[in-house]
């Protein structure tokens, strides 16, 4: 099978299974079910960017009525770990502790309180007396590795548990390099060379539901954690490790999640309510306020990126030198893998004859970086796609044509796939499906490229318009690393339960996985009840990250469904008295070649109650062998006010090849959401710090995310291809969209007013400065 035309459920926009319950407020999020006697936790955070805790006195705080427990670093096991919710062994440094006697950024943990009410917990946290010895902080990543710089992780335990470069004495959190050919020779052979420095800024996910976790010890003495997470299995492992509890005595439940975008691929809160619950014997809820979410959760890693790129007049790309300095903040969460992905997700897109890549992650005393939709690719597509425009201009070629001549195609590989993995070597692969050429063509038509590009000279007045574009790829899962598993059973009415460890965080993956199973089984998706995820009930899955769920967990579901399908056919053949080869499953019926048929409800009943009783079921797991990239071409039309510097996006087109869109409407929604987040990031979102490293705009008033009123005309266009290695031809879709706005808008600004903006976000001030008017 290689197209969707004869599929009944896959490729159709069935209603998201949990949508009606969400729209009527019936679904439960973590904080929506609070057990009786629950205590409320509060974390006291550091007011200083870098300091040692000399003394901590909780006496006064403990005296406040209603305070049940206070913990400081003296009360918890000292276990170095990473908060990054990655598979084991995690490729992030073990440099974090549940609580420590050192603080490394404003917002870092100092102590935690459990009390009868949130108000008491807050008052008690404020009543804790702490004596700090201030240490010199580092705020500029360019200073981190300078001779004599303060050492942020001077504790002996900090280490990397996989063999990769790590040098805490120089604040080096991670480093990666990759070379193809000889870059100097490549640049020497070029007719034109562009050299530039870019800066991509720190920003935040802002899920509408802030981080929240509830912990209690159940009647059997097991620790139960209900938490808003993308990675329940990693939470179980990492919390058990931190608390030195057996994994089998920890249960992690993921209810509905109010968005994550990577911020919840982090074991950020869970250990605190867990420790407090164990100490008090009562349930403990820890809920971040929006302010805490800003100051003390995770961010997009900022990067300073130096580029050298060369091309010949005929459009041959002779060399690309990518040198990234990444600021991981106070802890090295995803410090290696994000910067690896800055290379691995961008460098294979074009046929560069020579490549040099170096990514360096350094500690500073600023808020901590983490996983964020796009995961390094967002940062590195900005320079790549701006520089391509510049090369095209210099050789006098249309920006689109230069890309068309050089982008990777189906059947081709890239040495980068093998060279760069998740901190270690990657996996060689050739591209199965690639619809990039079509994406470019369709997107260019939709934006009106021919009519609108390069028309600056014809415009008059202070407001100028321009168009820009970019091409993108991402991946689908981490090959040979990520594992997904599924369990499926049939009930006596012919309905099914699908249990998956894959973690729907609002993306609709429960629905997409139900569609995959339903397609295999020959039933409508409405006959599937999906449960995700609970470490006691659902099989293992690495969780929702690395664009893996549809491609990886989807295949696990398809396998489990095929097992169940075989059993259904067996039972049907017993009922119908015909050989299994003669049976087809269509619309919840088993049809025999001779025209006889039996309904699934009867098959279900028969299998459970009538004869040869057995549970019709399937269980399977899946590891991927490759990570097929989705592709996208994105186009922005902007208006630049040359008097105020204001940039407005008028229209944005994102044409995306995600293979088969299992649910086109949900896939479009992923693209639209990612694109708007990207536009908002490119234009307004930015962390602002005071001189001592305190975040000034830690609320949604002063940290501006786009609302409906700011919405430009966004067109998400699905360009179907068929990925041979994916479930029903599918690849990933959810991350790629966010990578386009930085370069597409920057290129459009150049088209409009002739200045290159290389530092994000593109605020009025930066634009005016670039125009020489400030």
């Amino acid at each position, binding site marked *: 099978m290689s197209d969707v035309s004869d599929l009944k459920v896959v490729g159709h926009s069935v209603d998201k299974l949990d949508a009606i319950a969400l729209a009527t*407020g019936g679904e439960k999020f973590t904080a929506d079910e609070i057990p009786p006697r629950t205590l409320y936790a509060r974390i006291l955070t550091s007011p200083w960017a870098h300091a040692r805790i000399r003394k901590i006195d909780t006496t006064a705080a403990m005296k406040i009525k209603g305070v049940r427990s206070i913990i400081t670093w003296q009360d918890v096991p000292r276990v170095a770990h990473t908060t990054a919710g990655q598979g084991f062994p995690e490729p992030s440094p073990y440099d974090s502790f549940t609580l420590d006697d050192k603080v490394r950024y404003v917002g870092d943990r100092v102590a935690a309180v459990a009390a009868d009410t949130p108000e008491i917990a807050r008052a008690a946290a404020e009543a804790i007396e702490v004596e700090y010895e201030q240490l010199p902080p580092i705020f500029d990543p360019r200073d981190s590795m300078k001779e004599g710089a303060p050492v942020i992780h001077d504790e002996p335990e900090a280490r990397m548990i996989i063999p990769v470069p790590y040098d805490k004495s120089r604040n080096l959190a991670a480093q990666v390099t990759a070379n193809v050919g000889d870059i100097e020779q490549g640049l020497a052979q070029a007719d034109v060379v562009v050299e530039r420095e870019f800066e991509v800024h720190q920003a935040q996910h802002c899920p*509408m539901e802030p981080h929240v976790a509830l912990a209690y010890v159940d009647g059997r003495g097991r620790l139960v954690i209900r938490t808003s997470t993308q990675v329940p299995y990693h939470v179980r492992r990492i919390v058990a490790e931190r608390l030195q509890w057996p994994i089998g005595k920890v249960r992690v439940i993921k209810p509905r999640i109010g968005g994550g975008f990577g911020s919840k691929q982090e074991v950020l809160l869970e250990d605190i309510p867990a420790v407090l619950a164990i100490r008090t014997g009562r349930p403990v809820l820890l809920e971040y306020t929006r302010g805490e979410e800003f100051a003390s959760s995770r961010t997009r890693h900022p990067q300073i990126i130096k580029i050298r790129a060369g091309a010949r007049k005929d459009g041959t790309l002779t060399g690309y030198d990518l040198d990234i300095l990444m600021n991981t903040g106070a802890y090295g969460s995803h410090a290696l893998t994000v910067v690896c992905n800055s290379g691995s997700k961008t460098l294979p897109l074009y046929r560069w004859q020579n490549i040099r890549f170096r990514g360096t992650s350094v500690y500073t005393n600023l808020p901590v970086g983490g996983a964020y939709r796009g995961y390094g690719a967002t940062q590195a597509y900005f320079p790549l796609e701006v520089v391509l425009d510049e090369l095209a201009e210099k050789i006098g070629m249309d920006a689109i044509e230069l890309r068309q001549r050089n982008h990777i195609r189906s059947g081709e590989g890239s040495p980068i796939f093998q060279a760069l993995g998740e901190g270690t070597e990657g996996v060689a692969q050739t591209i199965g499906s690639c619809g990039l050429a079509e994406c470019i063509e369709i997107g260019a038509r939709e934006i009106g490229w021919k009519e609108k590009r390069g028309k600056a000279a014809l415009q008059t007045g202070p407001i100028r318009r321009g168009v820009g574009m970019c091409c993108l790829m991402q991946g689908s899962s981490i090959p040979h690393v990520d594992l997904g598993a599924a369990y499926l059973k049939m009930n006596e009415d012919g309905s099914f339960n699908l249990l998956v460890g894959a973690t729907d965080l609002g993306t609709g993956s429960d629905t997409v996985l139900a569609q995959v199973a339903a397609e295999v089984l020959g039933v409508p998706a409405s006959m599937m009840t999906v449960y995700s995820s609970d470490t006691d009930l659902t099989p293992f899955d690495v969780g929702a990250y690395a664009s893996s769920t549809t491609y990886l967990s989807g295949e696990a579901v398809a396998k489990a469904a095929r097992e169940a399908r075989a059993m259904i056919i067996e039972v049907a053949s017993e009922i119908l008295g015909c050989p299994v080869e003669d049976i087809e499953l269509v619309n919840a019926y088993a049809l025999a070649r001779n025209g006889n048929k039996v309904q699934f409800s009867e098959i279900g009943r028969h299998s459970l109650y009538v004869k040869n009783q057995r549970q019709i079921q399937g269980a399977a797991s899946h590891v991927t062998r490759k990570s097929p990239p989705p592709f996208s071409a994105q186009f922005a039309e902007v208006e630049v006010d040359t008097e105020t510097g204001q940039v407005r996006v008028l229209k944005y087109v994102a044409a995306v090849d995600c293979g088969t869109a299992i649910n086109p409407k949900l896939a479009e929604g992923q693209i639209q*959401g990612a694109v708007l987040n990207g536009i908002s990031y490119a234009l307004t979102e930015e962390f602002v710090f005071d001189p001592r490293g305190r975040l000034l705009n830690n609320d949604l008033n002063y940290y501006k995310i786009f609302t409906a009123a700011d919405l430009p005309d966004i067109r998400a266009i699905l360009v179907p291809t068929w990925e041979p290695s994916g479930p029903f031809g599918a690849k990933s879709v959810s991350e790629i969209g966010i990578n386009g706005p930085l370069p597409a808008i920057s290129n459009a600004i150049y088209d409009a007013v002739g200045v290159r903006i290389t530092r994000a976000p593109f605020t009025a001030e930066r634009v005016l400065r670039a125009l020489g008017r400030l």
Partner: protein
Amino acid sequence: MPNITLTVNGEKMTCTVAPDEKLLDTLRRLGRTDVKKGCGEGTCGSCSVLIDGRLMTSCIVFSARVDGAEIMTAAGLGTANAPHPIQTSFVKAGAVQCGFCTPGMVLATKALLDAVPKPDVSQIKMALDGNMCRCTGYVKIIEAVQDSARVLAGENEVPHE
């Protein structure tokens, strides 16, 4: 501590509230967890409710100030087995992703359509300006509002795939 009476989704209830207690906390304490807390500062709109028919962010309303009021939350608009057309339109349009903003969004839509039965896109955008959504990019939310306006006006529903 003041005693107040509220009618929440048609159900009358009396409760004691702290003088500085916010309506959001009161409602959630009373089990109305369909009202969500995204910021507690009046900026995100997840806690939106209708107070005597007016859209308000309940996290910045003192409970004691709304003694005697009629409150409607998303669950009062409709339920999974008997949804309001606005809620159905949100589902059909694909406007629900994580759904954390959705209870507030459907109420904002209700408030808009009560006042302006046939809003144009810019009216919709302005009406939803106080309700943030980080998942959808608003495109399908706007389609859902347009769709519900049509349905409520008795026009034929635009067929969805």
